């Protein structure tokens, strides 16, 4: 019965979405098709604001004159834009884009703007009730941004320490992802038996659901019954001289949380790079290598002068994406250290951001924090893409 109910719920929702998309298309179609007609403005201004009011009223439960007036203003601007700027051109691409972009505007751009506004106000646990009851919040200008750089997002660690740690985290991870992925791709690119089997086995860390993979690896780093320490103990007892050198069980999760997270994330990230690089390697024609062989080039020379330049167009976007993903990787750190209070020793910017908002309930502060992080990511990737574009021009 419950299953039937949920199927019904989902079908209803898909119907709603379809109806919404159809209504949206109809709305834009009207503007594209009839912008020249004399009745264009009167019909638009009479029909659409009223329809929007009915719709929003049925969802939110209030029908106010003020709301209708806003819809009217919006409709006036939109239809004027269609009459005097768009003039019925580019109908097909805009109609094709409309559903996706309205979705993005509502669920991505609007929340983003909301966060920007929030960062100039002061929403935290003590002001949230006031905000709920009166709808107003104290305006604090840029002071949240000042706080981002001067106070700790968690209990003691500073922004700058977090930034440094994030950079170390990102570069170490991406370096090992690319190096490991490249090495494995080179190994796999030979004409060997069982290639398909090997490739399948090697992508398993990527294919496993990340939550499972991380939680399982976290168990493997447990001080007593984790695999890593069991092996260390066995090694130390088998070879006593290693034990004298200090080899023994390590309290991974409490003493070296960041190193643990890095090991786990390197393990998780290598397959993606391997697959991308392997794709690049396979697209290189073997005639290049044959020519190099005739010239008597060594293996390293071939690697340096043929392989690397030719996989660059595949590698650069993958590295850019990988950098952004690693910088933004909250899963590993949060799942390894986030529960039961957790430690601050492994937090990077994004996990501190999440904790500041949802563990410490400092919403405005975390909004300002998020915008600072966004700006940094944006500049990193613009820089990367610029260098990629420059490389493209060289070719």
């Amino acid at each position: 019965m419950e299953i039937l109910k949920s199927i019904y719920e989902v079908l209803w929702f898909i119907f709603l979405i379809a109806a919404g998309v159809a209504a949206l298309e109809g709305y834009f179609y009207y503007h594209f098709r009839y912008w020249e007609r004399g009745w264009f403005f009167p019909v638009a201004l009479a029909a659409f604001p009223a329809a929007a009011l009915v719709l929003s009223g049925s969802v939110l439960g209030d029908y106010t004159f003020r709301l209708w007036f806003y819809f009217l203003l919006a409709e006036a601007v939109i239809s004027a834009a269609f009459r005097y700027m768009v003039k019925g051109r580019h109908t097909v691409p805009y109609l094709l884009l409309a559903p996706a972009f309205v979705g993005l505007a509502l669920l991505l751009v609007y929340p983003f703007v909301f966060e920007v506004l929030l960062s100039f106000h002061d929403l935290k646990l003590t002001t949230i009730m006031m905000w709920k009851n009166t709808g107003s919040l104290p305006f604090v200008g840029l002071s949240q941004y000042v706080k981002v750089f001067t106070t700790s997002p968690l209990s003691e660690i500073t922004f700058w320490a977090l930034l440094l740690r994030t950079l170390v985290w990102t570069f170490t991870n991406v370096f090992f992802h690319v190096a490991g992925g490249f090495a494995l791709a080179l190994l796999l690119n030979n004409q060997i038996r069982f290639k398909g089997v090997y490739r399948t086995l090697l992508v398993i860390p990527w294919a496993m659901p990340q939550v499972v993979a991380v939680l399982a690896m976290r168990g493997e780093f447990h001080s007593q019954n984790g695999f890593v320490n069991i092996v260390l103990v066995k090694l130390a007892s088998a070879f006593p001289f290693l034990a004298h050198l200090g080899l023994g069980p390590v309290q991974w999760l409490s003493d070296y949380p960041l190193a643990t997270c890095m090991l786990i994330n390197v393990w998780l990230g290598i397959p993606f790079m391997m697959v991308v690089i392997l794709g690049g390697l396979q697209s290189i024609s073997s005639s290049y290598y044959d020519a190099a062989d005739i010239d008597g080039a060594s293996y390293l020379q071939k690697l340096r002068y043929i392989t690397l330049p030719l996989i660059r167009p595949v590698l650069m976007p993958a590295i850019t994406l990988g950098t952004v993903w690693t910088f933004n990787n909250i899963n590993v750190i949060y799942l390894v250290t986030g529960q039961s209070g957790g430690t601050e020793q492994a937090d990077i910017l994004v996990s501190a951001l999440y904790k500041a908002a949802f563990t410490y309930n400092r919403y405005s502060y975390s909004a300002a924090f998020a915008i600072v992080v966004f700006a940094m990511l944006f500049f990193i990737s613009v820089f990367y893409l610029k260098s990629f574009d420059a490389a493209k021009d060289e070719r």
Partner: protein
Amino acid sequence: MKKKMSAHEKKRRVKYFFVHVGIIIFAGICVYPLLRIFSISLRPGDKLFSTDLSLIPAGASFTAYRSLLKDTMFLRWLWNSLVITLATSLIGVSLASTAAYAFSRFRFPGKKAGLILLLSSQMIPAGMLILPLFLMIMKLKLMNTYLGMIIAYSVSSLPFSIWILKGYYDTIPRSLEEAALVDGTSQVGAFWRIILPLSTPALSIAFLFNFTTAWNEYLVARVVLFSAKQYTWTLGLFELQGQYITQWGMFAAGSMLVTIPVLCVFLYSSKWLISGLTLGSVKG
């Protein structure tokens, strides 16, 4: 001549032997944690914390699986995840497929701005939009429901899907559609009858990407869902592993049950996935 060949052959054999050894070591590192989960899930209840490294533990049994299915709402969690994920991916892929077509085939004002918007949406730090989405879902009275989750997820992988699909459409020759247009189809008809069927691989990649993103998500789920009945499997497993260390066996069993189907789907589609990921970038 013949002798030289065999020397060469010998060198090749030695090289390949080391290649095999190298790959097998790495493959072991990749697979071992999964095998460990499997072995832990088979352990009898009193041996959960043994330091035994054998794959099939002594006294192996399926008790953990049985108690997982009987004592927790694991199946219900899986079902919740499946419903939310399928609906999300359907919506995401259908919106992305049309938008990508517009980006691939038309010139229009705002095209570049749109593409930049898509790219820069990837820079939004994880967790930044959770609070506004949460407030929105609360305002729409959709807390703790499928619909709220679907709304929150539906556009999250849209930019990436549009990007992948655009890259794929770009490789389909325009002459195909032009022929159809000459024969009297509309532009939309050409898209529907020619481009969509041709881009099944890319559509599957986009679907898979949407699917795995939503299937593995838990940050939003943690905020929106609060009753155990509505949990997705990620929240459920997190709970099993987090609160009581005694449920380690059940956690392992649940992990296996979740991982195996995902693994199958992933490995089955991995060929497409690889071609799709590299294709757009090689074209530049």
